[in-house]
């Protein structure tokens, strides 16, 4: 039996951890397990005042349990890859590890009043998006699909927390991925 693992960094609130866990449990017809994740301070880049997503993915690859089908990590840290100013998340395309950053999904990040409902929707969409990449899906041209590329929160808000029919069909063809 293979499991979808969800690992939350220590700074992630329990309710946000559960939010992602429950989402994967309902979106993919596979058992979901939780696992602990150490703090991500090792990935901090003082020059950029952000955390590198590449070392985080390297850590996840090392920690990935043998019975893990995929491992999705969640963090409050703002992530980057060297060539870009930030990323909402980062996945090994067709691999087993991915990470989602909740930092830029919150209204507070943009100086706005907190809005839990907006945040929850964004987190669901990004968790689906990065998981989709782990299953080999690339960005989708359908702007309403969870796999469409979002380079700002406005794009995230435009899409749905669901895969479009062609992406869902591709997922179904992936070895055992039942949605």
């Amino acid at each position, binding site marked *: 039996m293979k499991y979808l693992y969800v690992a939350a960094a220590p700074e992630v609130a329990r309710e946000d951890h559960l939010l992602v866990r429950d989402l994967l449990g309902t979106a993919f017809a596979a058992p979901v397990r939780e696992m602990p994740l150490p703090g991500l301070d090792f990935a901090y880049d003082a020059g*950029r005042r952000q955390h590198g997503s*590449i070392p985080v993915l390297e850590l996840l690859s090392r920690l990935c349990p043998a019975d893990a089908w995929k491992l999705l990590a969640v963090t409050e840290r703002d992530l*980057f*890859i*060297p*060539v*870009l*100013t*930030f*990323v909402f998340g980062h*996945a090994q*395309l067709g691999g087993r590890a991915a990470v989602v950053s909740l930092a830029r999904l919150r209204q507070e990040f943009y100086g706005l009043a907190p809005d839990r409902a907006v945040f929850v929707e964004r987190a669901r969409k990004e968790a689906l998006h990065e998981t989709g*990449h782990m299953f080999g899906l*690339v*960005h989708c*041209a359908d702007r309403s699909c969870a796999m469409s*590329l979002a*380079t*700002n929160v406005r794009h995230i808000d435009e899409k749905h927390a669901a895969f479009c029919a*062609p992406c869902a*069909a*591709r997922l179904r*063809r992936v*070895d*055992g991925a039942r949605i």
Partner: protein
Amino acid sequence: MKTHWQILVVDDEEVMCESLAAWLREDGYSVDTAASGHEAVEKSRLRDYAIYFVDLKMPGGMDGIETMMQIRTLRPDASIIIITAYATVDTAITAMKEGAQEYIVKPCNPEEISLLVNRIIKVKNLQRENTILRKKLTRQYVVHDIISKNPRMREILALCHEVASLRSTVLIQGESGTGKEMVARAIHNSGDRASKPLVTVSCAALAETLLESELFGYEKGAFTGAEQQRRGKFEMAEGGTIFLDEIGDIPPKLQVDLLRVLQERSFYRVGGSQEVRVDVRVIAATNMILHQAVSDGKFREDLYYRLNVIEIRIPPLRERREDIPLLASHFVDRLAHELSKDIGEISEGALKLLMDYNWPGNVRELENAVERAMVTCRNHVLTEDSFSFLALNGIAGKAWAAPAGMTLQEMEKVLIVSTLHRTNGNIKESAAILGIDRSTLYEKIKRYEIPR
């Protein structure tokens, strides 16, 4: 259409290189990396990348500007984006003057890169579509457009190039679907007559009298209905080339007339008494073995030798199997645009299937098979399943034969097992492929004790 476009990321810092490459791959592009300017130039020799992301500062005696200049010499149409962490006005001006499409500073906003790549690809898609449509419209194939790595075909293409500007008659022989007309067009378009007309006549399509008036034209009153003088195809091809397809089917009387045109470069219109002189190159083609037709007395020997000045025999596709992957990829590439399908690859299994198939209809059949597979494909990749109709038609090549002594029931079991394997055990899909209903499939699985 992203998978068709290849991108090369050039940066000596591996983490920079790989992170940008990975990000672009997530966006659906096919991405290669190079760790130096020298490596980038070598890679650009081997592959025609649509976009190059080149880091400005690289060690090893070749910086980003120098790399860009060398790539532009090899690939003038390439779009090159200079990327740097140390932006200055001077380097930006130099980069743009030397032909960089964009100059961006890293780290970049993801939106900036996404918009930039989308904009370039959009233009490239339009340019490619325009080229394909123009070529389709005018069918202006040149020798360079014919794809092959088969030694015999390479010799033929070299010969086509050599004889393109001569006036000598060419006889092209080959099975149906091997591309005889394409070779004829390539010879015409690659030579001095390219700006003059290429007129095609299918000799098998018309009755003897019609073909005569079609080729040589007629005078007013030559026959009932000839209300005015009409020029024939030979006159229409003046200064250019006439392509006589299926020359083996030409009737005996016209063989004599044609021989005269080839000898004298002149003829009479039907019902006419005035000699018409023409400067026309003749390229003839046939799928018959013409010297056999001569031996059988069906084709004039003197005409055969007049036509056979330069002989080109196009090998059937089964004798140049190494071209199958090349041609299949070419068709996928072209048809993806025509059919608006985001399909960029053919799986290894599918290629093996295509390589094993016998292709009695040659390149034309391969093109049709790829088109059929693409129309029904719902993925980015053509797989064995996409070409299942080749196997299902029972014509999956001579390579396949039922093992001797196998019973019909054993055969049925093997087919069910392989279909279930291909569909990952999906009963509904397997039943649809096998053309039976689900309950029948369940019953057979039980009867043959097929493990699930």
